[in-house]
């Protein structure tokens, strides 16, 4: 990707829930890129502060749901004096248009970025049709 441009602050988007949740804490939407190849769908999500052990990935009825829990212990016993952003757990869902081979989903977490590779199931892969 191009890296010549100067970075701007991206406003964190809050998750708008369909149902009310029992916990009062706000949640945020991870900034996400999604791309597709013949073999797989790849979802890249920015979830700063989330340890790889605190990520939950679920594919059910064609809906991918990713949740990430942040570690906010570094804020304990500290008094905020000046803040520019808020923090919270992450959650986001996507409707999957292709059928996914659920047993082969790969997840990799690095520097607060989750990369999910969702391999397409055999019937969802493109086929070349020869016109006779």
């Amino acid at each position, binding site marked *: *990707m*191009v*890296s*010549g*441009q*100067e*970075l*701007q*602050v*991206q406003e964190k988007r809050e998750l708008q829930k369909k149902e009310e949740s029992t*916990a*009062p*804490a*706000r949640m945020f939407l991870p*900034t*996400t*890129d*999604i*791309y*597709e*190849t*013949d073999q797989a769908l*790849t979802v*890249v999500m*920015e*979830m*700063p*502060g*989330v*340890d790889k052990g605190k990520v939950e990935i679920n594919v059910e009825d064609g809906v991918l749901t990713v949740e990430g829990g942040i*570690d*906010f212990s*570094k*804020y304990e*016993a*500290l*008094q*905020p*004096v*000046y*803040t*520019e*952003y*808020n*923090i*919270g*757990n992450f959650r986001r869902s996507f409707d999957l248009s292709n059928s996914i081979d659920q047993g082969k989903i790969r997840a990799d*977490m690095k*520097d*607060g*970025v989750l990369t999910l590779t969702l391999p397409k199931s055999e019937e969802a892969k493109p086929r070349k049709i020869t016109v006779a």
Partner: protein
Amino acid sequence: MIGMDPFDALFRLQRALDTRLASDWLSSATAGIGAFPPINLLQQGHDFVAVVELPGVRSDALSVEAKENSLRLSGTKSFDYEDKASLHRRERIAGSFDRTITLPIRIDPDRINAEYRDGILVLFIPRAESDKPRTIKIA
């Protein structure tokens, strides 16, 4: 007796962070180019802690400089996707950043401690001895 709910703890923290959102503590003392990355500053006794979100920035592409009352954060965020991929959703942004903030206190630049983990940079910023308040005994 109901135990302490961790979600309540997070909710209280979110409210505490909100109350200091863009407070005038730093006034207009942020210079350099642009306001990226966003910074949270917290106090621990006489000392300070800065928490900075930098998801996707590799630690070797990140540089931190400190002077007696300023901090400079610069670096580059870059990522590559496969050439043949078709992009369905593109929200992430790559690029470079260079931000300097001037703190309204004197710090001890030699004793700053930086930790980078899970896309979060945490700087432990000790206040300079000369800047700490002294109790004056009234004779």
